[in-house]
């Protein structure tokens, strides 16, 4: 199968959908050259640096029958548009009693690794997960990216595409044919029996590397990639943990009230899963600090394959809960 980068897969999905549906248009502070070239200025708009305004403009256009793609570029730039996201986009369908739909795709790159310091290295998806009324995903491969973006564009709700900065140039197989991946469907990226690692984006790859390493010692790691954050595929996560009895969550974001906390809760509040849990859950996350610039510091903050290995060992070594 031909290979595309993660970023190319996103653009290909968007271009294909734009060809299919003339109601789709694109807004961002700089027009993306390949889209601009193919679709022209009417459908690929370069906006002033006004994420608040053009997010709101997207909402209004969506309510009038268009299907806007609002590209915030780096997630950090969407904080100026937070009112439009939290108070408007997320609530407008519900608040107005469902009278019209607001189909929109938001795009935002997340994560660190670029040594661009605190403002430009954020992974705040759990802030959006907490807001009822938004769907969102964070793919780990070009294949997943293309399939999820297509689904999101066809969805009749605001959907956020979080895209890992670290993975932009990473290549992977993408079929030629049209395909979609449903929102809310996790993918087991590796099967195993001793421990479940729920990992996102770049950390899926780090977890795969960790699993490879541990396989040499006979440790069998299952890797669940939720892909979609909302709706979250609780069933796949829980059934993996019911099988392995152990859970490590690997996330490039900080732990506090993060995606990782949600997964810990989803697993430990489910009676059948909790009953099989043999060890405390383990979060392998960024340190809970703003992201620093210097490479030594940035390295110290982010989790990686080694910390995943250490986390796995920790849950494997943990004592069983004392039968009370």
């Amino acid at each position: 199968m031909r290979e595309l980068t993660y970023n190319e897969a996103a653009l290909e999905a968007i271009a294909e959908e734009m060809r299919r549906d003339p109601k789709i248009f694109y807004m961002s502070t700089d027009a993306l050259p390949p889209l601009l070239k193919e679709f022209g200025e009417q459908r690929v708009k370069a906006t002033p640096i006004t994420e608040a305004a053009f997010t709101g403009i997207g909402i209004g256009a969506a309510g009038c029958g268009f299907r806007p793609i609002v590209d915030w570029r780096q997630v950090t730039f969407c904080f100026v548009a937070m009112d439009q996201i939290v108070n408007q986009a997320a609530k407008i369908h519900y608040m107005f009693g469902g009278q019209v739909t607001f189909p929109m795709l938001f795009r935002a790159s997340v994560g660190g690794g670029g040594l661009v310091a605190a403002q430009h290295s954020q992974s705040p998806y759990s802030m959006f997960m907490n807001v009822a009324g938004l769907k969102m995903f964070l793919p780990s491969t070009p294949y997943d990216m293309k399939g999820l973006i297509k689904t999101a564009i066809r969805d009749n709700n605001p959907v956020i595409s979080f895209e890992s900065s670290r993975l932009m140039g990473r290549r992977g197989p993408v079929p030629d044919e049209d395909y979609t991946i449903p929102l809310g469907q996790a993918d087991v990226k590796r099967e195993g029996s001793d421990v479940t690692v729920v990992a996102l984006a770049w950390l899926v790859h780090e977890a795969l590397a960790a699993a490879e390493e541990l396989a040499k010692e006979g440790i069998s790691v299952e890797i669940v990639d939720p892909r979609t954050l909302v709706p979250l595929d609780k069933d796949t996560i829980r059934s993996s943990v019911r099988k392995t009895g152990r859970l490590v969550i690997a996330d490039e974001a900080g732990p506090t009230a993060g995606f990782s906390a949600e997964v810990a809760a989803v697993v430990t509040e489910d009676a059948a899963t909790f009953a099989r849990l043999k060890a405390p859950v383990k979060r392998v996350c960024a340190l809970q600090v703003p992201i620093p610039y210097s490479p030594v510091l940035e390295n110290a903050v982010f989790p990686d394959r080694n910390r995943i290995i250490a986390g796995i060992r920790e849950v494997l070594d943990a004592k069983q809960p004392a039968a009370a």
Partner: protein
Amino acid sequence: MALSTNLSPDKQREMLRQMLTIRRFEERASADYLAGKIYGVVHCYIGEEAVAVGVCTALGGNDRIISTHRGHGHCIAKGADLNRMMAELYGRQTGYCKGKGGSMHIADFGIGMLGANGIVAGGISIVTGAGLAAQMEGKGGVAVSFFGDGASNAGPFHECLNIAAAWKLPMIYVCENNMYAAQTAAAQTHALPDVAARAAGYGIPGIVVDGNDVFAVHQAASGAVDRARSGGGPTLIECKTYRWRAHTERKGQPDPRDQAEVEAWKRKDPIALLERQLRDQGELDDPGLRAIEGGVMSALEAAVAFAEASPFPLPEQATDDVFAA
């Protein structure tokens, strides 16, 4: 003050009917709020009726508007159904939002009313999106943003006026300058008394009108509509007006404004002005007025009856409509 217009007498009487409908609707909403039949928060538009009606009379059915937290007047002027409005205030299943929105969130996309909004300046960008949609549709539609003097200090005002001007969107920005944002006087928060003065910075017309003169408002809006429809881009219209009641309906809430100021503005009642004008023209007499009042009151009573007869939502409906299919 003599109002001037070339609108037909029928049209003028229709404007009076709409303005009266807004006033009576809100008088009732206020009473029912204080009686505990309407919940949450209610912001009354009384005193400002000429703005909504003057502007909306200049619009066609395919044009779109957006409102603020003070939304009843815009809904009614754009032709919203009183039954569904009142049912929404009463929190019933038959309301515009199925009881999910209440006063601050009434919308009727079917008639081009894109919603009240609880966030000051929150609607400005959304309706600018409707302006973009109209431009992309290419059918000559326009979009109108209503917002307050308070909202005119907020970022989205600036961002959107610039975008609309740069993209020549068919937009009309209508600032309802009632001189206060909640308890704070505009004189304290605005560098200049005229919001319209800001239009020049975007190269678009900025017009100040007497917001209690429904014909003046209508005339300014008509000019802006023509400009927008013909591809001339946006206009900023500032309507000087005043709200008669406190910022929100609330028992025992003090109104910090000078009572003499309030009284002076009440003497400039936009409804009385229009009524007098119609009488002076010989187009309205006592029976005529009574007929209009009667029509308004019976529509209102019907709306209340509809609301009261409507069922409350079911608890399980709380989880409906979080996401569309």
